[in-house]
């Protein structure tokens, strides 16, 4: 029995270590490449250990790349589509959870269908539609296109959270004369905040990662999001690799920090629900 337990522990430890290396190595390699010297990268070969002492050179690496302008564009797309998605989704989730009406199933199907539809399918007709609406080559068009795909996800997350709230609380408010939008904003919304946070993270990530629409709709490099800007370096050798990796690192950093912070909130939200239930 005891040897068996030791064997299980050894096996656990080994497989976990392999997965950890698998997960962490490319990230480490990004940082390593960012800090490597040009002569290492192009001639002698990159050393396995990162030159951490070269962190001070990062500001110089960024002279080659307008990354801060691109990051600003990415944040406008991410915040814009998150705000729009949450607003539309909250109202829709409340409707699907608390009301009965004809065509409810159809509405649910329409929302779900966005998950099966490849974005690449909509690129072509959206290109035509946005052209006639004057939305091509602007960030607003990207906010709109992204919201189409993130809003339904946000809506389903919030709907399942509202489903779990007992209706009695709203009913007592209704008897006290609280209007419907007040019940939603003052009773339902505070109770589903962890789910709103989860929906917000997912929407924000989609907006931050947005590539396909931006790559086809935006021709002016001034309003590229960071994803399209960074992709423009692929197969292009005039910008030093260290600069490209530094820009990629800066693009990754906010996403990872944001994810790690909010992930804890989501987890605690989930466990709080489990204790109560």
């Amino acid at each position, binding site marked *: 029995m005891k040897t068996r337990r030791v064997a299980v522990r050894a096996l656990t430890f080994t497989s976990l270590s392999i997965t950890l290396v698998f997960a962490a190595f490319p990230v480490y390699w990004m940082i390593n490449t960012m800090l490597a010297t040009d002569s290492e990268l192009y001639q002698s070969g990159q050393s396995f250990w990162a030159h951490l002492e070269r962190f001070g050179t990062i500001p110089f690496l960024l002279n080659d790349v307008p990354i801060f302008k691109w990051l600003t564009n990415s944040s406008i797309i991410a915040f814009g589509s998150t705000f729009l998605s949450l607003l539309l989704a909250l109202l829709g989730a409340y409707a699907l959870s608390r009301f009965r009406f004809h065509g409810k199933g159809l509405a649910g199907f329409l929302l779900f269908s966005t998950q099966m*539809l490849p974005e690449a399918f909509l690129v072509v007709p959206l290109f035509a539609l946005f052209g006639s609406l004057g939305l091509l080559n602007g960030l607003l068009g990207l906010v709109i296109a992204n919201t189409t795909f993130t809003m339904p996800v946000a809506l389903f997350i919030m709907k399942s959270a509202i489903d779990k709230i007992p209706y009695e609380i709203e009913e007592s408010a209704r008897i006290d004369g609280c209007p419907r939008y007040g019940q939603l904003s003052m009773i339902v919304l505070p109770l589903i905040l962890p789910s709103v946070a989860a929906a917000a993270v997912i929407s924000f990530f989609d907006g931050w990662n947005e590539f396909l629409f931006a790559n086809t709709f935006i021709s002016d490099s001034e309003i590229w999001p960071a994803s399209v800007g960074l992709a423009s370096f692929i197969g292009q050798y005039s910008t030093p690799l260290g600069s490209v990796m530094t820009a990629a690192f800066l693009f990754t950093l906010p996403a990872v920090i944001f994810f790690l912070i909010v992930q804890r909130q989501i987890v605690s939200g989930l466990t709080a629900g489990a204790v109560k239930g």
Partner: protein
Amino acid sequence: MPVLVEDEKDVVHNSKSSPRKNRLKSHSRGFSRWAGYLFIAPAIIYLAIFLLVPFARGIQLSFTDSVLVNPSGGSFVGIENYANLVTSARFWNSLGATLTYTATTVFFSMFVGTTTAILVNRKFRGRTIVRAILTFPYAMPSVAVTLVFIWIYNQSGGILNRTTGALGLGEVGWLTDPSFGMFSVVATTVWKVFPFVMLVMLAALQSVPEELFEAARVDGADSLSTFRSIVLPHLMPTIRVVALLMTIWSIRRFEIIFLLTGGGPVEKTNTLVINIYQRAFSEQQLGAAAAIAVLGLILSLAVTVVFFLAERRENVKEGTS
């Protein structure tokens, strides 16, 4: 042991029937129908304009010979685009690439994600930091992922070839050799998406009631049989849903493939989505691109329908047993 499983089923049944009860209750409380429409309207109107209209336009385009420079100028050609597709080897290759990519990506990300979730569900020192590192790939934007992997896969200075070279295995064109292109794309994708599977599975594992584990311990069950008879049945519904999501997302995935290989080497990774993009924006044939998109959509619809049928059968089985 069987008693435990029965108990668990009861819990599942209760949780399933309660929303139905709620719905009936809310109905009897006389909700006004119009308020419902008012709240759902913004979302539906939004989707009608930016999803349904372009969707209909896409279907209409697939029956025309429209070109990129003049999307509205094409003339109606009937099913010609579809007829050309089903007779072209390129389309079938693309369909095959989609299926290979989807099957391998889903299998390996489910496998790595689920086993990792089980491993980090145990209590050990430094568990928080280990979990944080493991979720890192999922948080990293796809474009940054591809930039790093292109450098890792690089034929001359890339760390992968330097390692295989040092080990005497020889060097490989990971992204340019037709026998390795698909492997490299799948490996990158699995790296990026397995944490999603892990996080969802972890949440499902933590919802396994502690009493079940205690009861199993009292009964003297070892860890393997505990896993088989308690944990796995509890995870199955989650595994099915995550597998469906991963499948649909794999059929849809664009950036990683487009930026790593652009559909190459020799069209080995030319999935339907990449094919649509190339037809529309490189070859400028909007009509043909739209036709591929319609067929791709039918594929993901078919997957979803099969999933829901299997799910219903599973539920019926559980109900009668």
